């Protein structure tokens, strides 16, 4: 019985530690991993639609297994290419660092014509765009800021000399 307790303790403690370690590691690497959006279950349109990037043979097999679904005319519409049928496919909701994401993919003639984000919210519940790409903004979009409203100024590294003529220097003198 003691052996069982010892083995159990070792097993439990080790697995608890491994889980903790893994959790810690995955927290730290999440910055470096790329965002992938598995778009699996097709709830809208014909069955058999999968992520547009997947292998054509897989698509063909899933398409054929579900060909009994009413309204499915995969074979007739695309007898040779065996790609996903035309229509709009809705992916399942996926939790990402941008919040919950759900996308709809529109496919026409075997190619993706549109990707729509159906559900995108950030932590505060605000909806956000799926892409984090920087987009041009006009200077007029940015409210003019006055130095009194900020407590610090970020700028390209300045030398001690350059600092003397910078806004930060003024802020520092005002707050000293």
């Amino acid at each position, binding site marked *: 019985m003691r052996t069982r307790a010892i083995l159990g303790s070792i097993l439990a403690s080790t697995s608890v530690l491994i889980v903790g370690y893994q959790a810690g590691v995955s927290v730290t690497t*999440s*910055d*470096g*991993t*790329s*965002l992938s959006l598995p778009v699996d279950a097709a709830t809208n349109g014909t069955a058999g639609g999968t992520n547009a990037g997947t292998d054509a043979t897989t698509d063909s097999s899933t398409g054929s297994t579900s060909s009994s679904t009413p309204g499915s005319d995969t074979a007739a519409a695309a007898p040779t290419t065996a790609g996903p049928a035309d229509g709009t496919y809705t992916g399942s909701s996926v939790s990402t*660092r941008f919040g919950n994401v759900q996308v709809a993919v529109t496919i026409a003639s075997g190619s993706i014509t549109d990707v729509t984000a159906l559900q995108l919210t*950030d932590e505060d519940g*605000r909806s*956000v*765009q799926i*892409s*984090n*790409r*920087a*987009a*041009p*903004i*006009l*200077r007029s*979009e*940015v*409210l003019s*800021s*006055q*130095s009194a*409203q*900020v*407590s*610090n*100024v*970020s*700028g*390209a*590294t*300045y*030398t*001690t000399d*350059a*600092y003397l*003529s*910078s*806004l*930060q*220097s*003024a*802020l*520092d003198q005002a*707050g*000293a």
Partner: protein
Amino acid sequence: MRRAFATMGTMASIELPAAWASEVSEVQRIFRMIDDRYSLYSPDSELSLIAAGHTSLSHASPPLLASYARALEWRSATGGNFSPHRPDGTIDLNGIVKAEAIEHAGEHLIAVGCPEWSINVGGDILVSPTGAATPATASASPLGPRVMRAGIAEPLSPTELLCSLELRHPRRAIATSGSAQRGDHIWRAGSTEPISFVQVSVVANDIVTADVLATAIVAGGQTALDDVTDRWDVDVITVDRAGAMSATPGLLHSLATK
């Protein structure tokens, strides 16, 4: 209250509640210690001795090796857009040690329980996390931690602000890199293209990421910008040679509110 002092070839400003004024000297000491190790300006620093060939890298101190290793990891992660080597091969850890120093100073302030602070070293800013400690000072708002608003300098006229944005947990760090002031600050890996951005600011959860990625985007241009915004959870504001701005969507909200 605020204290400014010279360190690492630039100026540092620390803002913290008056009750914690004594911590400034501690922060100063952290900076001085790191500067003593990494400065290439001082011939006696450990890094200078290595650069001059007096000390072998294999005999370097563990902290220096750790910083070097971290910098090399960032080099791989950014496809060489960030590099701890000068074009002539000299190790130059300037690109990372300042941020590391800020990081250490921030950790120290958190460790001692200082409730509300900001550290600005040469334009790279880290602010305290929300709820880091029970605010013990009268200056703390009863409604919770104050939102720290940071300005970004106009690249070519440092006395003006380009814009301002909120720094709040977890987005606690902003770093700005540019070709405007210290022209030789950023080493570009084999690129002959003219620099497309004169100034890049990166807002991130930690200061090292912000600093390294800002450097990498200035060095790598538009490709690096797209790559960084795809792969890292950061926000970016750029200013190109013509003075036109771009920003990631996450920032629009912050930029548009006072």
